[in-house]
């Protein structure tokens, strides 16, 4: 008894822990149940209560002690080793936890007894400590080893394999496919008939059914490259870009509203949608497209719109901002971290097929992505802010400035003739409780202008969107970022044209306080003459990083602000007599000259350009992020230098200046990046063959599927880069193959040997996507409006859709526009789309579901829109021919690209005959409705 007590009294003074056999901390390979015990009962407590001060994530752990690994515990801190294996009572760590001695840990309060008991039990087991707690220290898998695993290996340009059946090989793609089939002693399916082939190709490239004329032209063309001509025609059609842009929008969680409680509109998100359509139609090189997404605003040479007026490249960066936006974040640091996490998730999956976001809380379990690399990337995005900026090209901006100069010149001459006297502006008398933020006495200072409206500086102490000389100019004035205090009230003295407050951040005339990126409260002018105070009560905007924006995106009206003051008082400072706007002086004698100048002014004003703004990225306060230990933003670890994932960074140096987006863009768009080209050619392949060569198109990592045809994947990736990253080149290479032209009939033998069709022995049958189904309905009904681009059509809202932020309903038929132009309201997505597996705009979705649910059948049977279009299709059929057989034939060719079988004609005419007492329009509407409900309408073979 005595002996033990003595020993216990001096445990860490005399025991060099690792040196004495039997007391050393349990070495490698703890038993599984011990691992489980540790992970469930011990590690969480250590992480929560001890890591904040005692882990490798802290630059200098308290008392020199770290508890995040076996070695660290054994080494101990200033007080010596912390744990005596097998003896909790002798372990300083345990004693500190029990508050038994002088040292009491954690200092904030004793842990629950059950946790202390668990830690005691664990020490009694020998303190088995599985694995290294990586953090910044140890990448999950050594990078060199990782670089040898297939997705990270450089793309090879493999030789085209030799095959027996050389006659089947139309493009090298076929050799790769056939080599595998021959090795498995399987035959490819016979070629599809020409009608099936053109229907397949037309839906694939345009999302629409071929017209009977297009089918006829193909049938008549017996030349060997007849199908090549079809593919070229389709690739050149504007509908191609609309179809493939939609595939792309799935990858960037495209949404036009913020979701959350009120589902407010995002500003002009459709400009991005149009940008993507134009990029696909123009076959913009994919590497450039990628660069523009990451850093389009920073590129030294930007693509311009066709007429040269607007910059095209910056529009790529709009994709950063399609995420959900909280309407009143109580923890804005966490909200921002969540936003960045979503951006990392999308960038990782869309461009690289990597689930990088998995490394937010711990090193990626399967891919070579340590948490530190996640935060290197996070630093880049934390240094990037949303800015609603003008798209004007430098030429247009210069022309606008010149126009503004001329108008102001004319204004000055008019004022001189009118004898207008500039108003003097009485000073505001501020009170002790006021903290003036801006009085616009000097220039704009650190405020930043976009567009021309606010001119070159305040006029007479006022920042006004008339600064450029006319209401027709547009622009934004943005304050620098600053930290707000506890003051509860913000008083702003404004004037301007009456505007609609309900439009919130979409409002074209407004003053907005942006707190931690959230556009919280707005002030709009109410049209009263003169300047007047408006007051905001600050709730979530206190003690935050804020900025103001003063916006005039309207060609009519103006807004002006002359005083911005924070205050403890709910009452604004006393308003001295409002400055008068150019009081009338003596009337000039030369009224003819005045008339002439006014006319000139109107003519000049009419030349002011249409406003074009978009949600762009911009560099903002470039800084490194610190690791969030276990993903917790309140436990900051080491700083992670800005940069891309080490495994893919090509040895690039850490970012020193700017956000690092330019460098990231170069890494992603580099031909040396083994994933960028592979991931994109796989996506193209997926949309032609229903499944990718890698069947998990957004996950090329170890938890995804391995490629079924790795050499083919690399062959396509090589050709992609070689073609100058031409997406259309890959379409041609793929579609002109015999593989693409196979029929969907599968031989029983092949199905038995390869039920999942991994070797591609036939073309799979596919259901059309939601948008293709709706567009087909409009197309056969003759109701499809080919109009492209522009603001979206509001979605039709049925009485079955409800909730906050419910918008006004748009027309039932969406004005006949293609589905890509129906507004994607996050909280009010179109039910027809949702029923047919339209993805929620929350992450990258490279492969949509294809489910079978009763709501689909109910919709096709009973929905008003479907019935309306069927009615129109029926009327069209009546107008095509008098002979019912001819009508049926035309309907089949319109929808299915084939003539009906005689039995089908008989069925339909029998149905019509049974209803002969009814009006003809009704009968043919019913027939059309039945055909729409036939599976052939929504399936491709």
């Amino acid at each position: 008894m005595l002996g033990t007590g003595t020993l216990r009294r001096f445990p860490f003074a005399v025991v060099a822990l690792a040196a004495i056999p039997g007391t050393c901390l349990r070495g490698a390979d703890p038993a599984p149940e011990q691992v489980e015990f540790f992970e469930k009962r011990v590690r969480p407590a250590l992480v929560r209560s001890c890591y904040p001060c005692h882990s490798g994530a802290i630059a200098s752990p308290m008392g020199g002690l770290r508890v995040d690994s076996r070695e660290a515990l054994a080494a101990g801190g200033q007080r010596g080793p912390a744990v005596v294996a097998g003896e909790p009572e002798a372990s300083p760590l345990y004693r500190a936890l029990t508050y038994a001695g002088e040292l009491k840990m954690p200092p904030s309060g004793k842990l629950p007894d059950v946790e202390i008991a668990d830690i005691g039990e664990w020490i009694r087991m020998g303190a088995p400590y599985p694995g290294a707690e990586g953090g910044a220290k140890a990448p999950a898998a050594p990078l060199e080893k990782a670089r040898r695993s297939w997705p990270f290996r450089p793309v090879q340009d493999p030789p085209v394999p030799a095959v027996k059946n050389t006659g089947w090989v139309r493009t090298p793609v076929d050799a790769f496919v056939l080599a595998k089939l021959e090795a498995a002693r399987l035959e490819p399916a016979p070629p599809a008939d020409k009608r099936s082939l053109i229907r397949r190709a037309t839906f694939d490239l345009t999302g629409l059914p071929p017209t009977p004329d297009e089918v006829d032209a193909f049938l008549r063309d017996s030349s060997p490259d007849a199908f090549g001509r079809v593919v070229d025609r389709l690739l050149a059609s504007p509908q191609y870009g609309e179809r493939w842009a939609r595939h792309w929008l799935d990858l960037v969680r495209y949404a036009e509203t913020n979701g959350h409680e009120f589902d407010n509109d995002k500003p002009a998100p459709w400009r991005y949608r149009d940008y993507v359509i134009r990029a696909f139609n123009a076959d913009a090189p994919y590497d450039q497209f990628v660069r523009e997404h990451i850093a389009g605003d920073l590129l030294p040479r930007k693509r311009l719109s066709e007429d040269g007026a607007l910059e095209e490249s910056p529009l790529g960066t709009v994709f950063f901002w399609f995420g959900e936006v909280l309407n009143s974040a109580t923890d804005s640091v966490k909200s921002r971290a969540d936003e960045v996490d979503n951006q990392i998730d999308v960038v990782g999956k869309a461009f690289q097929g990597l689930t990088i976001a998995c490394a937010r809380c711990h090193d990626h379990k399967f891919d070579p992505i340590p948490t530190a690399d996640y935060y290197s990337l996070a630093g880049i995005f934390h240094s990037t802010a949303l800015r609603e900026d003008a798209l004007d090209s430098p030429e247009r901006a210069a022309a606008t400035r010149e126009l503004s100069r001329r108008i102001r010149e004319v204004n000055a001459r008019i004022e001189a003739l009118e004898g207008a006297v500039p108003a003097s502006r009485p000073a505001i008398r501020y009170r002790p409780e006021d903290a003036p933020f801006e009085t616009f006495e000097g220039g704009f200072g650190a405020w930043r202008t976009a567009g021309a409206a606010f001119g070159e500086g305040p006029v007479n102490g006022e920042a006004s969107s008339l600064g450029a000389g006319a209401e027709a100019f547009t622009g934004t004035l943005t304050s620098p970022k600053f930290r707000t205090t506890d003051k509860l009230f913000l008083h702003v003295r404004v004037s301007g044209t009456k505007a609609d407050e309900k439009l919130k951040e979409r409002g074209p005339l407004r003053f907005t306080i942006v707190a931690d990126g959230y556009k919280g409260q707005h002030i709009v002018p109410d049209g009263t003459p003169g300047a007047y105070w408006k007051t905001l009560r600050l709730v979530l905007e206190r003690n935050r990083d804020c900025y103001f924006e003063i916006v005039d995106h309207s060609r009519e009206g103006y807004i002006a602000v002359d005083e911005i003051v924070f205050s403890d008082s709910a009452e604004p400072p006393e308003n001295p007599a409002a400055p008068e706007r150019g009081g009338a002086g003596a009337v000039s004698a030369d009224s003819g000259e005045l008339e002439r100048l006014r006319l000139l002014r109107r003519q000049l004003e009419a030349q002011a350009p249409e406003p074009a703004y978009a949600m762009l990225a911009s560099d903002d306060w470039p800084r490194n992020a610190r690791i969030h230990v276990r993903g917790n933003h309140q436990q900051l670890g080491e700083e992670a230098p800005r940069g891309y994932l080490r495994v893919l960074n090509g040895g690039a140096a850490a970012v020193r200046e700017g956000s690092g987006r330019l460098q990231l863009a170069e890494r992603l768009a580099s031909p040396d990046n083994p994933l960028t080209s592979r991931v994109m050619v796989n996506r193209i392949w997926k949309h032609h063959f229903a499944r990718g060569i890698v069947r998990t198109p957004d996950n090329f990592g170890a938890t995804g599927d391995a490629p079924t045809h790795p050499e083919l994947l690399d062959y396509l990736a090589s050709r992609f880069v070689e073609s100058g990253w031409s997406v259309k080149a890959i379409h041609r290479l793929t579609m002109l193959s015999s593989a693409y032209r196979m029929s969907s009939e599968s031989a029983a033998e092949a199905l038995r040997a390869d039920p999942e069709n991994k070797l591609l022995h036939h073309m799979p049958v596919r259901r059309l996507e939601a948008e293709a189904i709706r567009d087909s309905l409009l197309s056969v009904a003759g109701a499809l409006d080919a109009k492209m681009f522009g603001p979206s059509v509001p979605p039709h809202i049925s009485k079955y859709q409800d909730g906050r932020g419910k918008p006004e309903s748009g027309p039932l038929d969406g004005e006949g526009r293609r589905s890509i132009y129906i507004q994607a309201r996050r909280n009010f997505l179109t039910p027809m789309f949702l029923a047919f597996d339209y993805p929620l705009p929350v992450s990258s979705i490279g492969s949509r579901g294809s489910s079978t649910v009763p709501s689909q059948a109910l919709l096709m049977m009973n929905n008003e829109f479907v019935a309306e279009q069927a009615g129109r299709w029926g009327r069209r059929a009546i107008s095509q021919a008098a002979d019912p057989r001819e009508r049926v034939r035309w309907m089949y060719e319109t929808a299915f690209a084939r003539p009906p079988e005689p039995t089908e004609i008989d069925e339909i005419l029998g149905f019509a005959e049974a209803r002969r007492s009814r009006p003809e329009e009704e009968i043919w509407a019913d027939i059309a409705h039945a055909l729409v409900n036939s599976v052939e309408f929504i399936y491709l073979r």
Partner: protein
Amino acid sequence: MPVHRARFTPERHSRREMLCRCANGFGGVALASLLAESAAAASRLPAPHHAAKARSVIFLFMDGGPSQMDTFDPKPRLTRDNGKPIPLKTPTTVFNISDKILASPYAFRQYGESGAWVSEIFPHMAGCVDELTIVRSMVSDHSEHTAANYFMHSGSGFQGRPSMGGWVVYGLGSECANLPGFIVMESGLVPPGGMDLFGSGFLPASYQGTLFRKGAQPIADLEPRESDAAAQREKLGLVRRLNKGVLERFGAVSEVEATIANYEMAFRMQSEVPALLDLSGETPATRKLYGLDEPDTEEFGRECLLARRLVERGVRFIELLPPFRKGCDRWDQHGSLAEGHRVNARAVDKPMAGLLTDLKARGLLDQTLVVWGGEFGRTPCAQFPDGKYTDKVGRDHNPFGFTMWLAGGGVKRGLTYGATDEFGYYATENKVHVHDLHATMLHLLGLDHKRLTFRFGGRDMRLTDVHGEVVHDILA
């Protein structure tokens, strides 16, 4: 090494997931679970992980966040110190306005053999306390409606995860032949977050909740467009005959076959739903029990009665949303607490008590898990809409300690579990996190929350993410 690593198995997908994916084929499980004949479906349902205590769930979701100190968790200290500053470190809340203590405007009494405390605004529920486990120590992670709603429904504060109803149907299938397995009933209020609260997230679309509105046509596209049923049947007959030819053309593709079979089910649903809604077979006593003929309780009473009828039909997960009351924004009483909570309680009190009584009388309570609560609770401190202390005073959001109750299938009867501090601000004893609630609900249904997974984005996703412990203390 978080726990989820251990769940990766050499096979890429769990059996359940395979079944679910293959379910797009004719006769597959997703269809079976959703709509197939019940007898045949039962044999094709996915197996639970262990013996279940409950077959169905009725979730009485109190949108807006009822106040714990004004319902089931009385705090005399608040009455004593009414108007004084609260001597606690208070967290940031949504409006973050005042630190002045606010006494409950209501009187509390103990009821039943269990002696549970209930506020005067729940006179009918007071008679049912011996059926309840009242958990006074709930904790959530979010103090804003939308995020907290997503969190309570899907275990994540963001849009895009499957709702728990979807998880349950994914895990167990539905025993109902002609109705969806996950049904949500509303009477004019969809909570912040919208329909995605009941979404299927990354699960197949078949696991979406179906929203039933009040009225004769509760769901979209249910009413045939044809003038009479015969006309529709003829048209579908033509479709079927045309499809036969198409099927030959396409070959025996299971997905296409399933689509054809789907029409039969949709057709049956057209008549099943009106039959469900037809309450003419219910006795006057039943109508009275649920308060069906009183203006205050008519809407929620109907939801509760329909919930019982859905349980009888084998529907797996039923969520009820409270009715709209003009002037009281859900349970979200930032102002006018005294009046607002009274009005909201009156709308649900009698129907809920009626539901428990009726389920019990029919022997259904034992196999039905009933769960009551909001997305969070409310602060003990006052919020003054007018800047002054008047009867318009209310309470802010509080996810740090709030009350929910459970009843029926597999939970203890007459238990009050956990506690908040003397002000009711923070849960202090036997904390039950939302993840723990989810784990416990799944457990009672025979599902292990750690094994109910779906592979998405390279991870085996769970309702409880990487968290959650079953609260064994409240299990019967």
